[in-house]
């Protein structure tokens, strides 16, 4: 670990940090809005295709891509967790703070991944436009 990373590395590190904490949440939000919006509005128009693509495939993409992004955030959180381990007394406060948010990010990403996967299960069970 370099002791004094340059400003670009710091910016990248800071952004990676927030991806680790909130990446899953954002991915899930995209999944939800896309999945719900595409399903409800396409079905309202009386079709189960969206621009030639079967609705089930479109919704499937709205499940799979966010799930991948969430897995990425989960890995980033693990990395952050390892890099802030162990937070000993007297050490810089940033490490303790990073540690806290690493744990928060890890659990959040896991939780959001679960939600996305459960939504994906429903896609396997239910026809896309059944009311």
């Amino acid at each position: 670990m370099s002791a004094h990373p340059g400003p670009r590395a710091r910016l990248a590190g800071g952004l990676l940090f927030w991806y680790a904490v909130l990446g899953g949440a954002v991915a899930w939000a995209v999944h939800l809005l896309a999945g719900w919006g595409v399903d409800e509005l396409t079905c309202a128009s009386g079709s189960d295709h969206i621009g030639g693509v079967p609705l089930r495939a479109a919704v499937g993409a709205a499940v799979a891509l966010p799930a991948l992004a969430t897995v990425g955030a989960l890995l980033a959180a693990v990395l952050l967790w390892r890099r802030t381990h162990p937070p000993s007394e007297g050490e810089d406060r940033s490490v303790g703070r990073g540690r806290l948010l690493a744990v928060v990010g890890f659990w959040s990403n896991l939780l959001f991944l679960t939600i996305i996967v459960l939504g994906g299960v429903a896609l396997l069970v239910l026809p896309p436009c059944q009311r």
Partner: protein
Amino acid sequence: MSGGVRAATGTAALTTELPVGRSTGWWGMVMFVVTEATLFACLLGSYFYLRFQSGDQWPPPGIAPPTLLKPLVMTAVLLPSSLPVIWAEHGIRKGQRWRLRAGLTATLLLGLTFLALQASEYAEKLHEFTLTTNAYGSLFYVITGFHGLHVLVGLTMIGWLLAASLRGGSFGAHRHDRVRNAAIYWHFVDLVWAAILFTIYLSPRL
């Protein structure tokens, strides 16, 4: 490259404090803009919600698809209006009051031009349909009108800044929070216009 990756994923980089060092006013304005942006997101979301449930033809029968020339001119007026604000802000950071005054004046003029163009567009459109014609009419006027109101508020802020800077004794290299906060609002008003351009004028052609 791999050294860069290692540096960026090291403890020191990962625990960089980001964001840092902003003023309370900055945060206040950013939070206000965030909540306003959510409002616009809901408004544009409502547009698409109604659009996709209203049958194949959009705009609905009796209303022609919006023409593009005037809105593109409006865009060409409004989007660049952020530049003088940025230039003015950089100026006052260096203590150059003249740049602040000149930049704000330029933005004020561009913003007023935008509003004048919008008024002329309304004058045409109102012959074709109004707020009460149907849901499309309601959406069109409420979305553009609400944005116009924001432009007006933004212009009031700019005018207010200009008045304060003309008085003297208001802003300088050490005191420019109000300039930056108003600038954030103005940039926001600009960006929202881009979203509206896409939603109202471009998306019916897709």
